[in-house]
């Protein structure tokens, strides 16, 4: 039953290109009387099955990066690819996005929220039931299957949104600060769940976060972004084994990774706040 959420395994692996998803020279400028250069130029290759996190100061274009990779926003310049095909105009099949804000549908029960995309895609009802039940169990929502989002805590609603994306069996999961509104303990535990989910689905994950420890603990690689317009100032390999969880925070290497990320972010965050690094 574990394959109920696994999408990546169904893909023809041999014919796949080296990079699962990539950004080439991507920039994003918001037009207007005073155009805002929000992002780039950015180059990024995500390997299939990789867990990649992006950290950066507030307003550096992290969310824009997700929107552009997802096809929710067009780049002003450059090329966005997913599984060898350009991403243009709409979200390609195989990409799932979890947003920072509460994106649950308040008029639907937890079950109907999670089944939303599957029903719209015309998936067989028995298969919808199977996948939704699995996702509800996987995300620890069994006691709330018939509840409405308003009856749930913020963390649980975010789980509903993650489950709603998961059942679509995305091969690339884009998460835009999904735990931003949660307390530290819940965030660590949700991080463990995210790792479990990543291993089980074998999907590629791009996580945006403002929490250095979260990035350091969860990722195979972490990209540190500059103040706006966001560019990568460091790409760092963590070297963690695939089997890992939040107990990593006690590892000696963990401190070194967060320290290196902070050294970049401190300077960039000061710039973003209008100050100069001492």
């Amino acid at each position: 039953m574990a394959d109920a959420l696994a999408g990546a395994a169904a893909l023809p692996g041999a014919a796949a290109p080296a990079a699962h998803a990539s950004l080439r020279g991507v920039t994003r400028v918001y037009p207007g009387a005073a155009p805002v250069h929000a992002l780039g130029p950015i180059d990024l290759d995500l390997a299939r099955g990789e867990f990649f996190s992006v950290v950066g100061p507030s307003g550096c274009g992290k969310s824009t990066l997700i929107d552009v990779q997802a096809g929710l926003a067009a780049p002003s310049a450059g090329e966005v690819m997913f599984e060898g095909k350009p991403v243009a105009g709409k979200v390609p099949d195989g990409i799932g996005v979890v947003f920072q804000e509460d994106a649950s549908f308040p008029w639907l029960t937890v079950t109907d929220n999670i089944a939303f995309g599957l029903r719209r895609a015309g998936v067989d009802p028995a298969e919808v039931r199977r996948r939704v039940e699995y996702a509800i169990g996987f995300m620890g929502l069994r006691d709330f299957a018939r509840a409405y989002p308003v009856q749930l805590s913020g963390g649980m609603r975010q789980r509903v949104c993650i489950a709603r994306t998961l059942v679509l069996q995305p091969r690339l999961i884009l998460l835009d600060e999904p735990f931003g509104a949660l307390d530290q303990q819940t965030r660590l535990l949700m991080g463990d769940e995210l790792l479990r989910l990543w291993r089980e689905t074998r999907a590629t994950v791009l996580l945006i976060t403002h929490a250095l420890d979260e990035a350091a603990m969860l990722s195979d690689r972490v990209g540190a972004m500059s103040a706006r317009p966001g560019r990568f100032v460091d790409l760092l390999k963590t070297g963690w084994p695939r089997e890992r969880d939040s107990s990593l925070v006690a590892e000696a290497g963990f401190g070194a990774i967060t320290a290196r990320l902070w050294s970049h972010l401190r300077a960039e965050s000061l710039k973003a706040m209008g100050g100069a690094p001492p």
Partner: protein
Amino acid sequence: MSRGRAVLASRVGLIVGSIALLEILCRTGVINPLTLLAPSQMAVAMVDLLASGKVTPDIERTFSTVAIAFALSVVVGTAAGAVLHAMPRLRRALDPLLASYYAVPFFVFYPVLVAFFGLNEMPLVAIGFAAAMVAMAISTLNGLDRVPPVLIKVARMHRLGRLRTLFLVVVPAAAASLMTGMKLALAYAFISIIAGEFILSGRGLGYQIAYAYNSFDNKTMYGLMLFVLLVATAMNSLLHMWEQRLLRRRARA
């Protein structure tokens, strides 16, 4: 007793108490029966009147006029709200008009409307529609303004087309405001059409109340007034309950 039940009990108590007080004041002669009938007499008069079938054509006339005005105002008001939401410039231009529409005495247009539509129910439909449509359009605008942009992103992530996004995401997300609009539209249509009949028409419940008033027929007048009051309250309460149900579900903690 839960808090909700206590509130309900005190509401019912207030209404029953007021009616009982009025009944006592009327029965003891403190209030002249030529001025006001006792509530029990009003109720008897209403039942007799309805059973006699004398006012059935007027009831049908008024309700059909209200129904047409209401349906038109909901359809046109929702569409107008959606168009204004999609065209911010037009919206900015019309903003002062939307904000002050309730100050327009639509009844003064009656002669023009009669000249336009003839002496039938259409001028009253137009007056009811004019009063109700803008309320519906404003509520639609409010509802659309409050649809969280992230839900539209979710729709795009699920690769929904425009129509499916509209019906599966936008309309449910704005449902509570649309319901408020319908509640207001029904109330405005009802009020303006009854008032229009009162002054301007030769048929309908409003006309019959005015006719009874002019003929010193207190029983018919108060019977009809009670009937109109009960119907208006019942319709509004139903819509209000529905609206509250939608609002409770949408309240984000």
